[in-house]
C-alpha cells in the first residue's frame, strides 16, 4: 500500500502506466483516451434544457450527440480517481487560488476566477477547432501516428509556452 500513499510518482512511471491504460482502453472499449469531447456533450445537454430545437438543428451537436457516453463517464472517473489519490497521500486540499498565481498576481479569488473562466472559454473553442486536447491529440492521436495530432500537440505547446512566458513577465 506504501506506493499509493506517496504524494508523487516518477513522471516516467506515470506516463508508462497511462500508456498501458490507453492500450487497455483500445482493447476493451475500442476507444483511445480523450477528454475534451465530454465538454461539448455537456454543453449540449445543458443547452437542450433551454433551447431544445436549436440544439437538435445544430450541425455540430448532430455529430457530437449530447448524451452521457463512455467519454463523459471517463471524465467523471478522473475526478474520482484524482480525489482518491490525493486523499490517500494527504495531498487533498481545498484551494481557491493556486500558489504560483497568488505569489505573482493576487491572493483574492475573483481575478483568478475571471482569468480561469476566460482561459477556459478560449481553450474550449481551440479544443473543438483542433478537434482534441492534450489527451486526445497529445497522447492518443500522437501515439497512433496521426500527423494532424502531432501538429496540434506542437501548436498547444507553442501557444502555451509563449502565453505563459508573457503572462509571467508582466
Amino acid at each position, binding site marked *: 500500500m506504501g506506493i499509493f500513499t506517496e504524494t508523487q*510518482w516518477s513522471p516516467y512511471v506515470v506516463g508508462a502506466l497511462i500508456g498501458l491504460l490507453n492500450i487497455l482502453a483500445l482493447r476493451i472499449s475500442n476507444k483511445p483516451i480523450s477528454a475534451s469531447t465530454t465538454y461539448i456533450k455537456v454543453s449540449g445537454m445543458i443547452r437542450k434544457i433551454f433551447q431544445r430545437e436549436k440544439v437538435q438543428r445544430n450541425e455540430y451537436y448532430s455529430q457530437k450527440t449530447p448524451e452521457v457516453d463512455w467519454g463523459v463517464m471517463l471524465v467523471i472517473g478522473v475526478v474520482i480517481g484524482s480525489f482518491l489519490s490525493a486523499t490517500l497521500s494527504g495531498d487533498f486540499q481545498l484551494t481557491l487560488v493556486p500558489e*504560483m498565481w497568488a505569489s505573482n498576481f493576487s491572493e483574492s479569488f475573483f481575478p483568478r476566477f475571471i482569468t480561469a473562466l476566460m*482561459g477556459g472559454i*478560449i481553450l*474550449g473553442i*481551440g479544443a473543438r*477547432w483542433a478537434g482534441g486536447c492534450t489527451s486526445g491529440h497529445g497522447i492518443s492521436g500522437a501515439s497512433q501516428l496521426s500527423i*494532424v495530432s502531432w501538429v496540434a500537440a506542437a501548436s498547444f505547446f507553442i501557444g*502555451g509556452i509563449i*502565453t505563459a512566458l508573457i503572462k509571467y513577465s508582466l
Partner: protein
Amino acid sequence: MEKYHENKKLQLLLGLVIGIVFGFLLQKGGVTKYDVILAQLRLMDFAVLKIMLTAVIVTMLGISYLYPKGKIQIHPKSGSLKNSVIGGLMFGVGFAILGYCPGTIAGAVGNGYIDGLTGGMIGIIIGSGIFASMYSTLKKKKWIEDDHFSEVSLFQRMKGNSFKYTLPFALVLAGVMAVLEVVGV
C-alpha cells in the same frame, strides 16, 4: 471483444473505471496542479512533457504489436493541418491562461482546486458551446476543413513489421527525455 464493445452499459462502467485509474495517475504525476502545468509552460520543469512522451512511447509500441494482428482498431482524428494549427494555438493560449487542460482540470477538481471547478470547467463548457454555434459558418467560410491528413495514421501505411518504424522513433523520443534529464529540468 466486439460483443463487449457493443454492450452500452458495460462500456459506461468501463469508461468510469478507466477514468478513475487515469485520474489517479494524473494526480500521482502532479499534473492536476496549476503550479506544475505552468512550470512546464514556463520551461522550468518538464514533468508534463515527460509523462506525455512516455505515454506516447508505450501506447505506440503497444499499437505496433496489437494493430497488425487485428487485436485493436485505431482511430486517427479527422481534421487538417490548418485546423490543428489555428485551434492548437488558440488552445495553447487558453491552456496557459487557465493552467489546466480538459483532462487535468477534472483531476484538479478531485484535488480540491475551486478555481478549476467554478472558473475553468464552466469556461471550457461555454467555449465548446460557442464553437458549436459558430461551426456551420466556420465550415462554410472554409475556416475549418478536412485535408488529406484527415483520419490518416502512419500505421495504415506501414509495410511489414511496424516495429521497424516505431522502435527507432521511440528511441528518438527517449533521447529527447534523456537530454531533458542531462539539462536537469
